[in-house]
C-alpha cells in the first residue's frame, strides 16, 4: 500500500477528536509507553485522549472479565495475554477485528509480524481478536568476560572436556553453572533465574517439551505431566538452585535483573529487555531509576536457550473490548500503535518492555546501531522467535497456569517432586473435566498441531 497503516489510522481517527479512550495496560514499566510516549503522541495527532488503566498482570484477566461481565464498558482497548484469547473470545469479551482490518487496510502490515506471533497469537477460531504487540521470547544472557577468560576456559576444558561456551543443553548448563559458582562465588554465581510466577512455569513448559514430554494424552485428554519427563525436569530445576545465589527461589523479575546487572550472576534466561538494559541502553533515563545501574555493559553475550527452542513466554496482544462504546476509535488507536512505523519507535523506547516483534524491527538499521552488540541481540531474538515454543493455550488456560505456578512454588518449598506432579496432573484433569473433556480435547488438538507446540 502506498499509505502506511499508521497514517490511515490517524486520518480516520480524527473524526473522534475530543473523545477519550481507555486502554488496559500492565501496571508499572509497561505503562510508561502509552503514558509518556504513544498516548500523548496519539492525542497530538488525532485529538483523542488516551487514558491508561494500569492493572497488575495477575489481575488483568480478572479485571477485563469483570468489566465485560459488568457491561460497564469502562475499557475500550485492551492488552491481552495471548493464552487468554480463547477464553476471552469465547466469552464474547473481545471484539472480532477482521472487519476493521479490512476497512482500514491493515492486512499487509500484519504480514510483517514475525510468524511465531502472527500465526499463533492473533486469531481464535479463525477470527482476528488481537494484534501481537510484544516479541516475547526467552534468551540466554551470559557474561562474555567470564566465558572468554582464558584461565577459566582452560580449567573448564580440562575438567569437562569441551569448550566453555553458552550451554547447548541442560547438562552443560548445570556443569558450567556449577563450575563458575565453585570458582567465583560469592562474588559471582553460575546462574540466576527469575524463580517466582510466572516465569518458571514457562521454563517448565519449554524444558518438559524439549525432553519429550506431552501435556496430555491426546486421546483421553488425561494429563500426562506426571511422567518420567516431568519428574526429571522438576528434579533438575530444583538441583540447579544449588549453584545459584542463595534465596533465588524468591527472586522475581527485578531481583533477577538487579543481580545480573550488578554482575552477581554469570548466566540468566529472561525476556529481551534484559539485553537492552544490561547493555546500559537508556541508563540515563529517569524512568529507569528503579533499576540498579548496569555494571556489565559491554560484557553480555546473547544466545539461544539450551536445546535451542526457547519458550515464547506470555506476549501481549492489543485488542478491543466487546463492551467498548468507542470501538472504532479504540481500534484505530491499536492499529496505529501496532503499525510498522509506530511500533518501531515503541520497541526502541529505552524504558519499555515491548520487544521487537516485526521483521522490520529486526532489520531496522537504526535499532541495530543502538549499542555495540545490538545487531547480535536482534539476530538472537529473531532466531529465538522463529524457533520459539508456544505457551500452552487451552480453554480456561488461566486455571492450568495457576496449577503449574502453584506446583512450582511448592517445588521450591522442597516438597517431593513426584507428589507435586501427581497433584498437578490431578488438578489438570479436574479442570479439564469441568471444562468438558470433549471441548477441551478439540481445542488441544488444534493447539498441538501448531508447528510451535511440540518440537518435532
Amino acid at each position, binding site marked *: 500500500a502506498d499509505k502506511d497503516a499508521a497514517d490511515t489510522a490517524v486520518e480516520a481517527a480524527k473524526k473522534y477528536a475530543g473523545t477519550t479512550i*481507555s486502554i488496559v495496560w*500492565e*501496571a*508499572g*514499566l*509497561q505503562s510508561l509507553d502509552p*503514558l509518556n510516549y504513544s498516548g500523548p503522541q496519539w492525542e497530538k495527532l488525532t485529538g483523542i485522549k488516551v*487514558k491508561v*488503566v*494500569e*492493572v*497488575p*498482570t*495477575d*489481575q488483568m484477566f480478572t*479485571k477485563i472479565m*469483570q*468489566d465485560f*461481565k*459488568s*457491561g*460497564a464498558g*469502562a*475499557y475500550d482497548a485492551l492488552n491481552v495475554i495471548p493464552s487468554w484469547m480463547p477464553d476471552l473470545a469465547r466469552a464474547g469479551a473481545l471484539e472480532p477485528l477482521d472487519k476493521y482490518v479490512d476497512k482500514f487496510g491493515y492486512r499487509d502490515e500484519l504480514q510483517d509480524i514475525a510468524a511465531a506471533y502472527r500465526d499463533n497469537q492473533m486469531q481464535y477460531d479463525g477470527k482476528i481478536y488481537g494484534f501481537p504487540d510484544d516479541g516475547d521470547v526467552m534468551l540466554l544472557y551470559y557474561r562474555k568476560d567470564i566465558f572468554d577468560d582464558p584461565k577459566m576456559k582452560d580449567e573448564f576444558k580440562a575438567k569437562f572436556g569441551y569448550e566453555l561456551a553458552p550451554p547447548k543443553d541442560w547438562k552443560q548448563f548445570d556443569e558450567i553453572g556449577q563450575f563458575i559458582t565453585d570458582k567465583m562465588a560469592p562474588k559471582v554465581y553460575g546462574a540466576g533465574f527469575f524463580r517466582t*510466577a*510466572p*516465569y518458571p512455569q514457562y521454563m517448565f513448559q519449554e524444558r518438559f517439551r524439549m525432553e519429550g514430554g506431552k501435556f496430555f494424552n491426546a486421546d483421553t485428554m488425561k494429563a500426562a505431566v506426571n511422567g518420567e519427563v516431568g519428574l526429571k525436569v522438576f528434579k533438575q530445576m530444583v538441583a540447579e538452585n544449588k549453584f545459584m545465589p542463595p534465596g533465588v527461589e524468591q527472586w*522475581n*523479575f*527485578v*531481583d533477577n535483573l*538487579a543481580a545480573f546487572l*550488578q554482575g552477581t550472576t554469570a548466566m540468566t534466561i529472561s525476556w529481551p529487555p534484559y539485553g537492552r538494559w544490561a547493555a546500559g541502553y537508556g541508563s540515563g533515563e529517569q524512568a529507569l*531509576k*528503579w*533499576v*540498579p*545501574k548496569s555494571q556489565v555493559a559491554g560484557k553480555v553475550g546473547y544466545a539461544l536457550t539450551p536445546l535451542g527452542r526457547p519458550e515464547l513466554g506470555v506476549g501481549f496482544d492489543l485488542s478491543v473490548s466487546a463492551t467498548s462504546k468507542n470501538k472504532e476509535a479504540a481500534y484505530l488507536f491499536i492499529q496505529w500503535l501496532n503499525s510498522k512505523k509506530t511500533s518501531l519507535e515503541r520497541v526502541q523506547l529505552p524504558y519499555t*518492555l515491548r520487544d521487537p516483534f516485526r521483521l522490520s524491527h529486526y532489520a531496522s538499521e537504526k535499532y541495530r546501531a543502538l549499542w555495540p552488540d545490538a545487531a547480535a541481540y536482534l539476530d538472537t531474538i529473531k532466531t529465538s522467535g522463529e524457533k520459539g515454543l508456544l505457551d500452552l493455550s487451552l480453554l480456561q488456560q488461566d486455571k492450568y497456569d495457576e496449577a503449574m505456578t502453584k506446583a512450582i512454588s511448592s517445588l521450591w518449598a522442597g516438597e517431593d517432586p513426584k507428589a507435586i506432579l501427581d497433584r498437578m496432573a490431578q488438578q489438570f484433569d479436574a479442570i479439564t473435566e469441568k471444562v468438558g473433556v470433549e471441548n477441551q480435547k478439540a481445542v488441544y488438538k488444534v493447539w498441538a498441531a501448531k508447528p510451535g507446540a511440540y518440537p518435532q
Partner: protein
Amino acid sequence: MRIGRLPARKTRILAVRYLGACVVTLLFLFPVYWLFMISFKTADEIYHVPPLWIPGQIQFSNYYVLFKDGDVLAILNSLIVAGVSSGIAIVLGTLCAYSLARVGTGGENLAMWIISQRMIPPIAVVFPIFLIYVYFGLVDSYFGLILLYTAFNLPYVIWMMRGYIVDVPLELEESALVDGLNRWEVIWKVVFPMVRPGLMATSVFTFVFAWNDFLFALVLTRTEVITFPVMLTHYFGGQSNFWAKIAAMSVLGTLPIFVAVSVMQRYLVRGISLGAVKG
C-alpha cells in the same frame, strides 16, 4: 498492678520498665522505620547487599514520581471515599443508635442483627455485592464505594454509639425536654455533644476501616476511583516490584491515618476499650 514497690527498689524498677518500654516500642516501630527509609533510598541503595539502615542521603525522588505521575490521586480518592462514607455512617449510625438505645426500637433482635452484619466476612459478600453493583452500574463510582463503606461501617458505628448513648444520663435528656427542647433538638443539642468523645473515636475507626479496605476496593474499582491500597498493588507485579514506589506510597497512605490517630489519640484508647467492653 502495684505490687511490691519498696522505696529502695522503686527507681530500679522504673528504670527496668523504661528499658522494657523502649525495647518494645523500638521493636514495634522498626518495620515502620524501615519502610520510611526505603522510601528515601535510591534503587542502588534498595538493592544493596547487605541492607543499608540509613540511606546515603534523604532524597524525595520516590515521592516526586508519585506526584508527577498523578499516582497520589489515589490518596485523594481514598480521602474522599473514606471521609464522606465515615461522615455519613457516623450521622446515620448515631441516629439509629439513639433510637436503639433509648427507645429500644426493634428490641434485642434488631441490635443483634445489626451487629451480625459486622461479623459477616467481607469475602462472603464481596462477590454478590459485585454482581449487584454490576447490575446497577455502581462499579467504579464514588457513590458505589461510599455506599458500601457506609454500610460496612454502620453496624460498627451503631454498636459503638449505642454504648456511648446508653451512658448519657437519661436525666440530661429529660431535663432538656422539660427545659423546652423537642426530641430532635434533644438529639442534636444534648446527645451529640455528650457523646462527642465517642464520636471522635468512632469516626477515627470508621475512617481507618474505610481507608484500609483493600478487598472491596480491589473488586469494585476500575479506573476512576482507584483507592490507595489498590494503587499500592499496582507496584507489585510479575515483571516489576517497585519497592521505592511501594514504600513512598505506603508512607503517603499512612500519613493521613497517622495524623487522624495522633489528633484523636486521647479519645482513641477509650474508644477501643469501650467498644470491646460493651460489645
